[in-house]
C-alpha cells in the first residue's frame, strides 16, 4: 500500500510542480517567428560546410578502381520495401529504383538527357515512326541463357500486358527484324525529351526461357552485374557480384560495374533507426538521415569516426497549387497571389529540416532550370511579402472563408502544412488542413470539391518533365490539369517547351513568366537527400543522380 502511495505522491508532486512553473502570461494563440536560424544552428551548419561536396578518391590509397579485387560487403539502409522483384513492377516502389538496376538491365540508360546503350549497341531511325535497335550478340544472363531479339520483344510485351507500362504513349509495337535487331513502331514522331525513357530505359530485359521456368518475384535471373542471392520481402535483399558478366571489360559501362562482392539492402522503416544502424556499423550507407543527426556524423560529431556526410538536393519538388475550377474562391488570381506572397519558403524548409527552399518555379537540380528566373521581380517564390499579400487579398473577393489544404499525410508534408496554415493566418487567410493517407489523397485530388489548395510531390527526369504532371491537361483525361486549369495558352506553351525544338531557355522563361503572371503554381521546396556513408567509399556513383549504384562506387581496399 505504502509503495503505491509514495510512487503516486511523487508523480503528483512532479505534475503539480510542472503546473506551477507553467503558470505565466498567455501569449497570442497563433504566431510565427520566422527569422533565420540562431547561432547554434549556424555552428551546426559550419560543421556540415563541406557536406554538399561529393567524396573524391584519395589517390595515395589503393582503391577498387585500379585493382581487380572487390570490396567485401556493403550494407545499405532502405526506407521502404521493394515488395517483390518482378521485372514488370519497376514503378511500384521507390526502393526498386535502387535495387533493380543491379540485376536487371534495360536497352539503354538515360543519362544527362541522352540514351546510353547498354544491352543495345545503338539505334537507327528508319523513318519517323520506325526505329531499329540492335543489341549485342553475346548477351547472357546469370543462368547462361542467350538473350536475343525474341527476348527483347518478349520483355516489352510482358510489361505492356501486365498493365504497368506507364508513359508508353509513344510506343505502338515492337517486332523482331533479325536475331539481334528489333524494330519499334511509334504512334507519332518522337519529338519530346525523354519520350522513350520508359520503353527503353525502364523496361527490364529478361530471357523468355528463364522467366517462364523461374520465379522472378523472389529470385529473378537477368543480365546485370549482380545476381540475387537472398530476398526476404519486407526485410532484406542480398546481391552477389556476377562473375560472368556478359559485356567485355573494355566496353563495360562505368555504371554497370561490380566493385563490391556483396550488396545487402536492409529495409528499415524508421529514419531514427537508420542513425542507430549506421552508428553501430550495421549499415554503411543510408540517405534517410534526419537533418538533425547529420552533425553527429560530420567531423567532430559523436559518430564521426568512419563515417562521412553528403547532402544533395534531390530532383523532386513539393509544389503547391490552387484549385482553379470555376466558382472556386481560389479561381480568383488575386487570392492566389495573396496566398503565394504570404508564404515563406525559407521558414517552411527550415521547419521540415530535410528540404531545400525553392527560389523559383522549379528545381535547381536540373540542367534546364535557369537561375535567372529567381531575379524576376514578379517571382512570388523568392520572398515572403506580407504587404503585397494583404494588398492582393484586399483586391480579391475573399471574406474569411476557410480554405481546404489537401496533401498526403507524410511527416515532412505535415510539417509544411502546419507552417503554411500559420503563415497564411498571418495574412488573414484561414486554412483547414486535410492530411490524408496517400492512397486517399491521390484519389481525392482528382475531385475539385475536395480541396482549394493542394500540395503534391512531383518529379521527373528534367525540369520540363517535372512540370508536365501538374500542368499538362491530358494527364487526367478530364480536360483539366491537376489544378483544374483548362487554359489553352498554358497547354500550348507547355507542349512547346517539352518538344525537342522548343526546349530553349527563352521559351522556358516565357513559360515561367506566364505562370507567374497568372499565379498558377507555387514551388515550395525540394527534398534534400541526407546521406551518410562509410569512409571506405572512395567515390559515390548515382544513377539518374539520385539512386546509389553501390556496385559502381569505388572503395578503399587498404
Amino acid at each position, binding site marked *: 500500500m505504502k509503495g503505491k502511495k509514495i510512487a503516486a505522491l511523487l*508523480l503528483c508532486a512532479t505534475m503539480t510542480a510542472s503546473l506551477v512553473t507553467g503558470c505565466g502570461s*498567455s501569449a497570442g*494563440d497563433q504566431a*510565427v*517567428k520566422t527569422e533565420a536560424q540562431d547561432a547554434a544552428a549556424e555552428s551546426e551548419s559550419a560543421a556540415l560546410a563541406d557536406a554538399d561536396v561529393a567524396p573524391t578518391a584519395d589517390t595515395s590509397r589503393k582503391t577498387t578502381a585500379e585493382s581487380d579485387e572487390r570490396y567485401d560487403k556493403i550494407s545499405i539502409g532502405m526506407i521502404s520495401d521493394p515488395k517483390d522483384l518482378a521485372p514488370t513492377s519497376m514503378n511500384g516502389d521507390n526502393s526498386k529504383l535502387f535495387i533493380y538496376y543491379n540485376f536487371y538491365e534495360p536497352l539503354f540508360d538515360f543519362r544527362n538527357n541522352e540514351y546510353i546503350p547498354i544491352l543495345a549497341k545503338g539505334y537507327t531511325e528508319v523513318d519517323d515512326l520506325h526505329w531499329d535497335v540492335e543489341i549485342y550478340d553475346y548477351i547472357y544472363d546469370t543462368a547462361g541463357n542467350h538473350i536475343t531479339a525474341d527476348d527483347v520483344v518478349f520483355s516489352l510485351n510482358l510489361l505492356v500486358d501486365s498493365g504497368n507500362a506507364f508513359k508508353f504513349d509513344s510506343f505502338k509495337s515492337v517486332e523482331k527484324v533479325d536475331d539481334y535487331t528489333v524494330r519499334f513502331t511509334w504512334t507519332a514522331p518522337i519529338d519530346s525529351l525523354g519520350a522513350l525513357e520508359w520503353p527503353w530505359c525502364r523496361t527490364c530485359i529478361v530471357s523468355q526461357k528463364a522467366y517462364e521456368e523461374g520465379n522472378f518475384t523472389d529470385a529473378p535471373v537477368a543480365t546485370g552485374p549482380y545476381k540475387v542471392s537472398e530476398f526476404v520481402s519486407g526485410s532484406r535483399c542480398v546481391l552477389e557480384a556476377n562473375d560472368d558478366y556478359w559485356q567485355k571489360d573494355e566496353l563495360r559501362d562505368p555504371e554497370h560495374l561490380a566493385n563490391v562482392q556483396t550488396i545487402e539492402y536492409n529495409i528499415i522503416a524508421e529514419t531514427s533507426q537508420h542513425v542507430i544502424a549506421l552508428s553501430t556499423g550495421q549499415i554503411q550507407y543510408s540517405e534517410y538521415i*534526419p537533418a538533425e543527426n547529420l552533425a553527429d556524423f560530420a567531423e567532430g560529431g559523436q559518430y564521426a569516426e568512419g563515417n562521412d556526410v553528403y547532402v544533395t538536393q534531390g530532383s523532386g519538388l513539393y509544389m503547391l497549387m490552387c484549385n482553379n475550377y470555376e466558382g472556386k474562391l481560389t479561381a480568383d488570381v488575386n487570392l492566389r497571389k495573396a496566398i503565394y506572397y504570404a508564404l515563406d519558403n525559407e521558414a517552411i524548409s527550415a521547419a521540415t529540416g530535410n528540404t531545400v527552399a525553392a527560389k523559383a518555379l522549379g528545381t535547381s537540380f536540373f540542367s534546364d532550370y535557369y537561375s535567372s528566373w529567381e531575379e524576376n521581380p514578379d517571382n512570388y517564390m523568392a520572398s515572403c511579402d506580407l504587404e503585397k499579400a494583404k494588398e492582393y487579398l484586399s483586391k480579391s473577393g475573399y471574406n474569411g472563408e476557410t480554405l481546404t489544404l489537401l496533401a498526403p499525410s507524410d*511527416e515532412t508534408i505535415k510539417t509544411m502544412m502546419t507552417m503554411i*496554415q500559420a503563415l497564411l493566418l498571418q495574412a488573414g487567410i484561414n486554412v483547414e*488542413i486535410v*492530411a490524408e493517407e496517400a492512397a486517399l489523397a491521390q484519389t481525392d485530388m482528382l475531385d475539385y470539391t475536395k480541396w482549394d489548395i493542394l500540395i503534391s510531390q512531383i518529379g521527373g527526369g528534367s525540369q520540363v518533365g517535372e512540370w508536365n504532371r501538374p500542368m499538362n491537361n491530358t494527364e487526367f483525361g478530364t480536360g483539366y490539369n491537376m489544378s483544374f486549369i483548362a487554359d489553352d495558352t498554358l497547354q500550348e506553351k507547355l507542349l512547346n517547351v517539352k518538344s525537342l525544338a522548343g526546349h530553349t531557355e527563352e521559351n522556358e522563361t516565357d513559360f515561367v513568366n506566364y505562370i507567374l503572371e497568372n499565379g498558377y503554381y507555387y514551388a515550395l521546396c525540394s527534398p534534400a537527400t541526407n546521406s551518410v556513408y562509410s569512409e571506405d567509399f572512395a567515390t559515390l556513383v548515382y544513377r539518374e543522380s539520385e539512386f546509389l549504384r553501390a556496385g559502381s562506387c569505388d572503395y578503399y581496399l587498404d
Partner: protein
Amino acid sequence: MRKEKRSSLFAETMSRIWSNPGAKVGIIILVIIVSACIFAPFIASYGLNEMDLKNMFKGPSAKHIMGTDGMGRDLFSRLLYGGRYSLALGICAAVVGSVIGIIIGSVAGYLGGQAETIIMRFMDIWSSLPSMLLCILISAVLGAGFFNTVLALSIGNVPIGVRLIRGQILSERSKEYLEAAESINCSKISIMFRHLLPNVISPVIVDATMGIGMTITMAAALSYIGLGVQPPTPEWGAMLADARTHILNYPYLIMFPGLFIALTVLAINLIGDGLRDAMDPKLRK
C-alpha cells in the same frame, strides 16, 4: 422512494471507491490532469500553435519547462491543450461504444429466441475482426478527423458491451421482479430500460471506464501509424508520432507525451479497478 435508494447506493459506491487507496490516487491524478487540460489557456504560457523557429528543439528549461518541438512550439502548452483531445477521444469512444453495446445487448438479451441468436452470431462475426484491425480499417474508410476517429475507436468496444449486457440479462431474466413487472402489463421497452437495465449496468460501467484508458492508448497507436487526427491538433499520440524521428537527439519529445498518456491511463485504470471492487456485490462486506 426509489430515487432515495438510488442516491444512497451511489453515495455508498462513491465512498467505497474513495476508501480504495488505488482508486483515490487515480482520482487525484485524473482531477489534476483534467483540470490542467480544461484550464490550459490560463496555465500554458504559450499558445497552442505559437511557433518560434529561433527556438526549435530547445530542451527543458525555465522558459519552456518541457522544451520546444521542431517548430519551436512549447511542448508543455501543447500537451495541456492536447489532453483535451486525447481525453475527449477516449471518453467519447468508450461511451459511444458502450451505449451501442448496451442497446444491442439488451435488445438481444430481452427478446431472446431467434432474434437473439441472429444478433449474437453477428456479434461473433464482428468480434472475429480484431478491434485494432477494425479501427485501422474504419479510419482508413472514414479518413482522419476527430469524429471519425471516435467512431473507429468505439466500434471495437461494441461486441464486448453486447456480450456483457446480454450475459447479465440472461441471469436476471428469470428473476421475480420481472415477472411482477410483466404481470402489471408494463411494456417490453419499459421493462427493459426501467427495470432490467439499472440492475445489470454496473459491469458495463466498469468496462467502459477501463475502456477509456485502452482507447486513449489505441488512439495514440492509431496516430502512430498515421491514421489519427489532423495536424496541427496536439493529440498526444500524434505528438508522439511526430517526435519519433527526433528520438535520438531530443528524447524528451517522446518522453513527455508518453508520460502524460501513461499517467492518465494509469489513473483511469486505477479508478476502474476501484469501481469494479466497489460495484462487485461479492466483495461487499
